């Protein structure tokens, strides 16, 4: 537990009393300095939901009492080509919700805490009918899969989407894919996830990727694949599942490069693309889309004092499918 002072609510700022915060796998990577960029102490958490307690003089979009969210970004340059196009997530100077240096030189601290102060541009309006706790993970997991599905055109009803990995990102990708009218196959190494994938999440099919015969039978059947797996893996078997002109989008962040047999791309004009969260406008669009289609994450609520246990379980993928910290009901002093 760390005590610290937040800046005063600036003219463009919104002060938020945090009610819930999702535990993202990135929090784990960062807390353990697995990417080598951690600047301790860090307060993780970038799937933040709460109520507005104060707004600055220039704030027009929000008022006290509004239910709002904050995701992975809290600032960007607003001048570069990416920012101009609403792609703050590709701004070379973007400032992350935690473990970044803010414009005033101070460190940013995330949502495993009781309050946060954020520029209104980076605050999302939480739809009325969206549950606050189950909606929190959409602020990272949701936008991380929604954005590439839109950008790479994975939205044509009747087309076939493969979702590799059934964790925080994967389970939301299945729900969003079904809402787009796609046929969805979950691709996973764990056969025991099959019945949940189909009966609870609504996937149409389940492919055990460690079964060579099943993988062979599925070759050339998918229009797109969202690869949420962050462990190092070869892309060869996944690429083979794609039809001609198929697209594989990787949203996980393995710490070593992935192996790609180039003929798998050349011989069928396939592509591998990346995607990283989404811009602010698109994140709001995603929240509204999910609210309309009754999509929220499947979560396990934990108290603040249970965080370390939750993170250990997350490291073993022992969660269906996101932990969410019930900040509002946790004693923090």
């Amino acid at each position, binding site marked *: 537990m760390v005590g610290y002072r937040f800046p005063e609510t600036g003219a463009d700022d919104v002060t938020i009393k945090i009610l819930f915060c999702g535990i993202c796998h990135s929090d784990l990577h960062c807390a353990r300095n697995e990417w080598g960029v951690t600047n301790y102490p860090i307060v993780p958490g970038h799937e933040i939901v709460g109520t507005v307690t104060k707004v600055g003089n220039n704030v027009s979009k929000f008022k006290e009492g509004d239910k709002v969210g904050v995701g992975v970004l809290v600032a960007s340059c607003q001048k570069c*080509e990416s920012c101009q196009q609403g792609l703050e997530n*590709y701004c070379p100077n973007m400032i992350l919700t935690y473990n970044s240096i803010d414009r005033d030189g101070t460190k940013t601290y995330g949502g495993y805490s009781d309050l946060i102060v954020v520029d209104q541009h980076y605050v999302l309006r939480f739809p009325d009918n969206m549950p606050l706790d189950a909606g929190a993970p959409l602020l990272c997991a949701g936008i991380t899969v929604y954005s590439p599905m839109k950008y790479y055109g994975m939205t044509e009803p009747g087309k076939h989407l493969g979702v590799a990995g059934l964790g925080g990102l994967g389970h939301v990708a299945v729900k969003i894919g079904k809402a787009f009218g796609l046929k969805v196959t979950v691709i996973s190494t764990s056969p025991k996830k099959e019945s949940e994938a189909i009966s609870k999440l609504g996937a149409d099919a389940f492919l055990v990727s460690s079964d060579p015969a099943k993988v062979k039978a599925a070759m050339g059947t998918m229009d797109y694949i969202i690869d949420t797996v962050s462990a190092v893996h070869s892309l060869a078997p996944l690429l083979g599942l794609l039809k001609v002109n198929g697209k594989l989008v990787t949203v996980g962040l393995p710490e070593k490069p992935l*192996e*790609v047999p180039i003929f798998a791309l050349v011989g*069928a004009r396939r592509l591998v*693309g*990346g995607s990283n969260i989404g811009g602010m406008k698109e994140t709001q669009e995603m929240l509204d889309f999910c609210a309309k289609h009754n999509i929220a994450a499947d979560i396990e609520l934990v108290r603040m004092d249970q965080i370390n246990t939750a993170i250990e379980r997350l490291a073993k993928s022992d969660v269906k499918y996101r932990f969410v910290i019930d900040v509002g009901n946790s004693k923090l002093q």
Partner: protein
Amino acid sequence: MGQAPEQEHPKNAFGWAAKDTSGVLSPFHFSRRATGEKDVTFKVTHCGICHSDLHMIKNEWGNTIYPIVPGHEIVGVVTEVGSKVSKFKVGDKVGVGCMVGSCHSCDSCAIDLENYCPKVIMTYANKYHDGTITYGGYSDIMVADEHFVVRIPEGTPLDATAPLLCAGITVYSPLRFYGLDKPGMHVGVVGLGGLGHVAVKFAKAMGVKVTVISTSPSKKSEAIERLGADSFLVSRDQDEMQAAMGTMDGIIDTVSAVHPLMPLIGLLKSQGKLVLVGAPEKPLELPAFSLLMGRKIVGGSMIGGMKETQEMIDFAAKHNIRADIEVIPADYVNTALERLAKADVRYRFVIDVANTMKSTP
């Protein structure tokens, strides 16, 4: 197996073939099928030597059927057409590229992508519909289904157009498909060989700014003065590469040797596209982080469909685009292949078939 190559079909044919993995070519008597109702028969005037020919004659991809008559950049003049042929007549200048057949019923064939048909029949060393093995353009005559024949417009030189039938379409198709053909865009071309030099010409004709990326500084003045590239980047020069980071909308990578992709991905702007048209025989490493952080893409492409190949030939004719070639006699072919293996050619060898590939009595 059955019949000897000379007896398989009714028309006599003569070419040069490799008989084993040494890849050495020598004169070869064989035969071509009778002109079927949809076939076009033509006298071959020229045939380009593609790097794929080199891989295939030595069985480097493990699928070669000997004896092999290579050549899939074939041009000539029509001598006979079948009764149902509507697109061509005797005397027309025509060409055949990498394919001579496909299934015509799959999803790819249905959208003019015969090149991605799972049953595509390659111009040489593949089994044709009649069960015989196809022989390519290092030979005096060709017979091909009209669907797989393209017209060479009047006024375009046959010899310098031949390489477009493989090299040309291989780079034209991805420039269009991946949208790297918009005036004002900045596209990099990696490798300045048969494919690379044609890519520069097509991209310039599309109004694109072109940077050649190469390991050989000696190619710089040619790239800029002769081929019209706007700039030249030596890929081994760290400072030059660093200065060029984040400046390109796309890159066409023609290099088929194993090479690192990360520096190339770094040259791309956000949302940039790296397109591979060479296929190294080992997998390459893709750093996922560099794709994510700019929403970048790595894609592949392989030749093009027949409709697009004709479109490419017409575009080239309109913009006076032709390959830079070294015309050689048939008996120089083995030397040419050795030089090609050392990249010692500017930038394509073309065999003068009509004048030099004659059966010795």
